[in-house]
């Protein structure tokens, strides 16, 4: 206990206000002060200025906490802010009496945290949301002021944890178009920001270093009986990178488990849904205030959080199975309860459920963003790269499981695109394992060497399932095969240059064969295949023109370098400068035999030989522009004249043949 002193609450409030103004002024002009002092050659040390400014903010917080306590004591003594003065009509504001308070204890911001937790508790206990709203008016400002204040954060979340998590359910509007009032949104935003900031704080040093939020508080967060409300704090909280990745990962697991267990994850229905317009509106509300989606989105923005979830060798597969699914939509509603029941009651009775539940709204974009984030760590030897590689393994396994259980069902487009993204990012790794079946997919460091980057090694059966789901439309096949054409060029170059014994061309070809087979199963019509071919050409050209400018093949390449280059080319910038018109025009006008002649592997092989320096095209060659091969009749002519010329130990024809053999495209 400290020393009790007598204070005038109103003067204390004024002092707080002036301290706050002083802090603001110093903070705003700090850079200018430092700059001027340096310019004038002042010997006054300005390096401590930021520390002083931070201390000034602490003083503001301390004084603010004392002011709150002083007013509270005044109220306990019977003082009321508004009262009737003798001889005056209406209400006048009353000056609070002097009170005595413990200057030291109340000056600690932890005290303010406790008070704010109590305010929140009282407000949320109010039955009427309007009462809760009024009681909480001052809370957002206080939470914002103490965002970086460990004492406050620890005290507030220790006291308010379970209650704060239910704030959304207490605050939502029972009628009207918006689910939350502006004030409620402000409270939820402030609570979300506070929770995010607290999640990133650490206390103690060395071995004793630990999260500010104790395990018990974290357990209340993840074990909440009201996952929807928790999701709303995350929705209105800050962007994913402002959160602790572990907490977001725990929250994601908790939300997915709650969803799987059939707990309430959707916003409450407000009143009876009388018509199908009401029912439809409620579906829109569900999609807008989708708690699981909100948490998945933040975890995706965070990146590492998604990788913690899917990259865990023990539990990642379980969550990947929940995510790789066609269930990511609002539940829809039973139209038989509404007007449509009157339209055709007979056939409905004859075949119950003959109408699909209408009003389902797709919510898979957050799921897809999460899947993408889970596989997006920078490649390397880090734990993050390891989790990313395991995430790839689990996503492939989950896709194979889904296809096995639902052979006729295609995954939602967004999720399929996340699979394409994954396949693209890990293409060389997939190629390395596409030809041999083995017992179980795993993530490992190549060559079982801790110095090598982490890589997913996925079974061919699972790869086939992944591509079978990912690629559905001709353009998707076209784009993917275009990416492979780009990589084939690198593979040819690598086969010449890389001193390692890996045969990239053959591996890439093996995977290409798999894609080709899957496409064959679709039996696309000729017109659609033209689209596919166009997309493929553009993609290949964009990869080669966008990626190779920065690459140098002049230095000897170490083992693994080519894999790195193949990975680097995974997301090529589209090069608008490069003209694809001619190539496209050419094969549109000359149709079949032109395509047959030049649009298979010859061009990528030729490109690879040029990149490796094995072929130096003549200066006047019209089919090379900035080092990039254009598929023209001139190119076909040049190739026919050089088919028996040897390049790096093989004739051009042999190079092409090897690529074709590998792709199993030979007649």
């Amino acid at each position, binding site marked *: 206990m400290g020393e009790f002193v007598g204070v005038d609450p109103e003067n204390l409030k004024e002092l707080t206000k002036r301290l706050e103004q002083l802090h603001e002024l110093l903070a705003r002009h700090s850079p200018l002060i430092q700059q001027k002092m340096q310019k004038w050659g002042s010997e006054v040390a300005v390096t401590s200025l930021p520390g002083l400014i931070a201390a000034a903010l602490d003083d503001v917080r301390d004084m603010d906490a004392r002011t709150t306590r002083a007013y509270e004591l005044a109220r306990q003594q019977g003082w009321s802010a508004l009262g009737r003065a003798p001889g005056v009509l209406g209400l006048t504001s009353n000056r609070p009496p002097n009170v005595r308070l413990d200057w030291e204890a109340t000056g600690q911001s932890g005290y303010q945290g406790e008070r704010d937790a109590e305010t929140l508790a009282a407000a949320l206990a109010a039955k009427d949301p309007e009462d809760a709203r009024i009681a909480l008016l001052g809370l957002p400002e206080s939470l914002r002021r103490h965002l970086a204040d460990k004492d406050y954060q620890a005290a507030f979340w220790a006291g308010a944890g379970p209650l704060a998590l239910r704030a959304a359910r207490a605050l939502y509007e029972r009628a009207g178009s918006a689910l939350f009032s502006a004030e409620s949104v402000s409270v939820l935003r402030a609570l979300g920001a506070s929770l995010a900031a607290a999640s990133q704080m650490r206390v103690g040093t060395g071995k004793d270093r630990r999260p500010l939020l104790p395990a018990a508080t974290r357990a209340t967060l993840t074990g909440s009986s009201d996952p929807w409300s928790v999701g709303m704090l995350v929705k209105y909280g800050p962007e994913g990178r402002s959160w602790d990745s572990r907490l977001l990962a725990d929250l994601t697991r908790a939300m997915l488990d709650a969803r799987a267990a059939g707990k309430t994850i959707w916003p409450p229905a407000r009143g009876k849904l009388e018509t199908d317009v009401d029912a439809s509106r409620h579906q829109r509300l569900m999609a807008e205030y989708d708690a699981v989606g909100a948490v998945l989105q933040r975890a995706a923005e965070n990146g590492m959080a998604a990788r913690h979830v899917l990259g865990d060798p023990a539990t990642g597969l379980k969550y990947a199975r929940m995510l790789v699914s066609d269930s990511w939509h609002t539940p829809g509603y039973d139209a038989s309860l509404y007007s449509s029941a009157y339209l055709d009651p007979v056939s409905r009775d004859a075949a119950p459920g003959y109408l699909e539940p209408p009003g389902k709204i797709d919510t898979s974009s957050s799921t897809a963003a999460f899947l993408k984030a889970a596989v997006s760590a920078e490649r390397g030897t880090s734990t993050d790269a390891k989790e990313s590689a395991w995430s790839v393994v689990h996503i492939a396994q989950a896709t194979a499981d889904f296809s096995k259980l639902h052979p006729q069902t295609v995954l939602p487009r967004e999720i399929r695109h996340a699979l394409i993204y994954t396949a693209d990012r890990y293409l060389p790794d997939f190629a390395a*394992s596409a030809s041999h079946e083995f*017992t179980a997919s795993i993530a490992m460091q190549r060559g*079982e060497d801790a110095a090598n980057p982490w890589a997913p090694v996925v079974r061919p059966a699972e790869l086939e399932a992944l591509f079978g789901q990912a690629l559905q439309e001709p353009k998707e096949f076209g784009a993917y095969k275009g990416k492979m054409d780009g990589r084939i060029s690198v593979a040819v170059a690598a086969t010449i240059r890389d001193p390692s014994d890996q045969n990239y061309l053959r591996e890439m070809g093996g995977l290409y064969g798999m894609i080709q087979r899957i496409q064959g199963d679709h039996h696309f019509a000729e017109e659609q295949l033209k689209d596919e071919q166009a997309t493929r050409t553009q993609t290949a050209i964009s990869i080669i023109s966008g990626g190779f400018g920065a690459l140098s093949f002049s230095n000897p390449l170490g083992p693994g370098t080519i894999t790195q280059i193949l990975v680097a080319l995974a997301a090529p910038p589209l090069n608008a400068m490069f003209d694809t018109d001619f190539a496209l025009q050419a094969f549109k006008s000359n149709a079949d035999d032109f395509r047959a002649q030049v649009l298979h592997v010859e061009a990528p092989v030729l490109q690879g030989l040029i990149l490796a320096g094995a072929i130096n095209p003549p200066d006047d060659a019209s089919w090379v522009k900035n080092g990039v091969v254009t598929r023209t009749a001139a190119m076909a002519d040049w190739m026919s004249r050089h088919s028996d010329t040897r390049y790096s130990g093989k004739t051009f024809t042999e190079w092409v043949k090897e690529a074709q053999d590998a792709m199993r495209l030979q007649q």
Partner: protein
Amino acid sequence: MMRRRLASLLAVAVCTQMLASCTRIEPPTSPETGEAERRGQALVAVVQCFVDHNVLARSEAESHSWFENGKVQQTAALVDWASSHAETSFSGKTLQVWEDEATAGWPGWRCPL
């Protein structure tokens, strides 16, 4: 050229035999998945052949997780090892050539060393 044709014919014959005899195990989703199955098994036999005849030093094999109690295991680590040794020469032929031959003759292929 003649050798290639013979190999193809042999492969077709083996495939036909395989289709008739593999009803016991899970049927492959496509012939090519069957090929990955055969290639996976052939790789194990080839590497086992190398170890048994000291073409690949036993101490070298023992340094890898895919070698347990004297037997080559059909694991991800083996596939990874094979990927980085495709062009390595063993007894005069690259691993790739060994593997292609064994796959073409699978399951009748026997270690010729």
